[in-house]
């Protein structure tokens, strides 16, 4: 097992005006690791992963992805974004483009891939998320679960080696959560490096190598899933787990 460090966060701090969202975040992600991040809303978990592909700028500390440091340097931001895929809570598919155009857009315009080839790639990923028959439809014609799977395919089409998931199932009906989680589990089994913000603890137990619990902008607890669920160290974690596991 290689231990190549693909993401390094060192003393990362971020403020929204006076509000201190991220406080001295240290995090190291190794290649192929699956990290699940949970915590109450407003704890900074989404903000943290959004800093990793610079959708948010951090103000203090360093973030290094694949040896490239994230600064105001636009070239570096481009390099990192090409290697880091992201899936959002609200899917954010492009409503004016068909499913296949949604997926082939970035390969065509960013990777400068010929259209035919890009569409083949797109179809391959649609097969992977098990909805190739929806290729010609528009996002507005799909269910939430199908939309999120298209969003995952769209990210994968850029062939990233790290995937960030920002509450990918929070906007879905209970019935559709499973179809999305199945795709994510499959992706995990293939060895993708994944950072997942989610409250799906079943999923976490299945795939996570590391659990992270955040509260008020800090990483309160980081542990292997068996330790995390069976004997959490901090009281805050215990309280949180008791609330989400016994509701």
């Amino acid at each position, binding site marked *: 097992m290689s231990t190549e460090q693909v993401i390094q966060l060192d003393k990362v701090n971020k403020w929204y005006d006076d509000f201190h969202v991220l406080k001295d975040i240290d995090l190291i992600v190794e290649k192929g690791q699956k990290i699940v991040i949970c915590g109450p809303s407003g704890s900074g978990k989404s903000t943290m992963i959004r800093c990793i592909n610079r959708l948010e700028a951090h103000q203090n500390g360093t973030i290094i992805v694949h040896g490239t440091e994230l600064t105001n340097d636009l070239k570096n931001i481009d390099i990192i974004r090409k290697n880091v895929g992201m899936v959002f809570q609200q899917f954010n598919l*492009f409503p*004016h483009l068909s499913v296949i155009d949604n997926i082939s857009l970035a390969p065509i315009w960013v990777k400068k891939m010929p259209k035919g080839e890009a569409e083949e790639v797109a179809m391959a990923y649609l097969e992977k998320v098990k909805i190739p028959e929806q290729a010609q439809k528009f996002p507005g014609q799909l269910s939430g679960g199908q939309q999120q799977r298209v969003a995952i395919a769209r990210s994968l089409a850029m062939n990233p080696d790290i995937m960030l998931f920002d509450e990918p199932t929070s906007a879905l009906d209970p019935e559709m959560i499973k179809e999305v989680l199945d795709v994510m589990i499959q992706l995990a089994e293939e060895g993708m490096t994944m950072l997942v913000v989610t409250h799906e603890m079943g999923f976490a137990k299945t795939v996570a190598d590391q659990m992270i619990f955040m509260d008020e902008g800090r990483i309160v607890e980081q542990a292997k899933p068996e330790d995390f669920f069976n004997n959490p160290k901090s009281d805050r974690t215990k309280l949180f787990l008791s609330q989400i596991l016994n509701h």
Partner: protein
Amino acid sequence: MQTSLIRKIIFDEKSRSLLVQTLVIGLFAVFIYLIVQQTAYNLEKRGISSGFDFLNMSAGYDISIRLIPFTSEDTHLRAYFVGLLNTLLIAICGCFLATILGFLVGIIRLSTNWLFRNIAYVYVEFTRNVPVLLQIILYYSILLHLPKTKQAIPIFENFFLSNRGLFSPSPIFKDGFSIVAWSFVLAIVFTFFLKKSLKKKQEVSGKQYPIFLINSAIIIFTPIFVYYIMGRPLDFELPVLKGFNFKGGMVIKPEFIGMLLGLSIYTAAFISETVRSGIISVSKGQREASQALGLKSNLVMRLIVIPQALRVIIPPLTSQYLNLTKNSSLGIAIGYADLVHGFGGISLNQTGRAIEIMLMVMLTYLTISLTISVFMNIYNKSVQFKGNA
């Protein structure tokens, strides 16, 4: 039995709405009938003749701004067409200028540059809150207070701005110019196909071409090249100051410039707000998703934001085009010879056929407006989303 039938009609959802609609239409028809009857009776009683025979009578007045030849001997019908063309001219030029200015100001208002953003803000708040008529009169007055022709302000050597308008060179076409014109048309057709083939090429090879730049160059340089090959078959007659006025060339009247400035600067303020709201309406998530995929900001704008913003921009933009077109009837205030000024004003006074003329003018505006609506609606359909997004 009978009460239940009445009850059924009044309380049944469908029959009640049918009943109400029939009543309203009926009352409206009676109202119109009475007005027409009364008007016809009153006109007859006062011995005022009616009908459209006046259209073939000689107009007896001159129109200073005209796109087709017109003398005072020509008919009222021809005066109608002169006015119609002037209305269309100001409407088309106005919409064109207002769109460019509006999009520019709308985008600048979202700029991160504090100075630009606030200049645009002041412009919008000032122009859209002052009646357009006052603005037209203001610009016209400024134009009338320009120096006299003798002290006209030269622009690019051969244009002269004075209180009588903008004197500019007029083109004289010599033999062979038609070939230059055709080469221009062919260049446009060619670029159309080139665009298609380059797009195909991009689809096959993935290489991106600066299609817009290549095509602009072809459209600009082909006619210039042909022009020199044909031995420069185009001359300009330059305006030359002789005595108190310019001889030669052509003049763009201050009435036209005043109208154009007034209408387009006023309407552009509204269009800029439309454009701004359209761009804002595209959710932040759309930009974030495109950025996360690695798209650069100009591509995000071109491929993701603008196509979605158009969906919101087009319907109110149509309204603005309609407003501008109808506001062009304000030309009467500064003597711009549009449809209302000539045919709707002088012809009306001379013939006294107020009802006929007003009906004709109104129907004309209605036709122009509906035509604009139809085309904009077709365009609007092409930019809407499929499904419920």
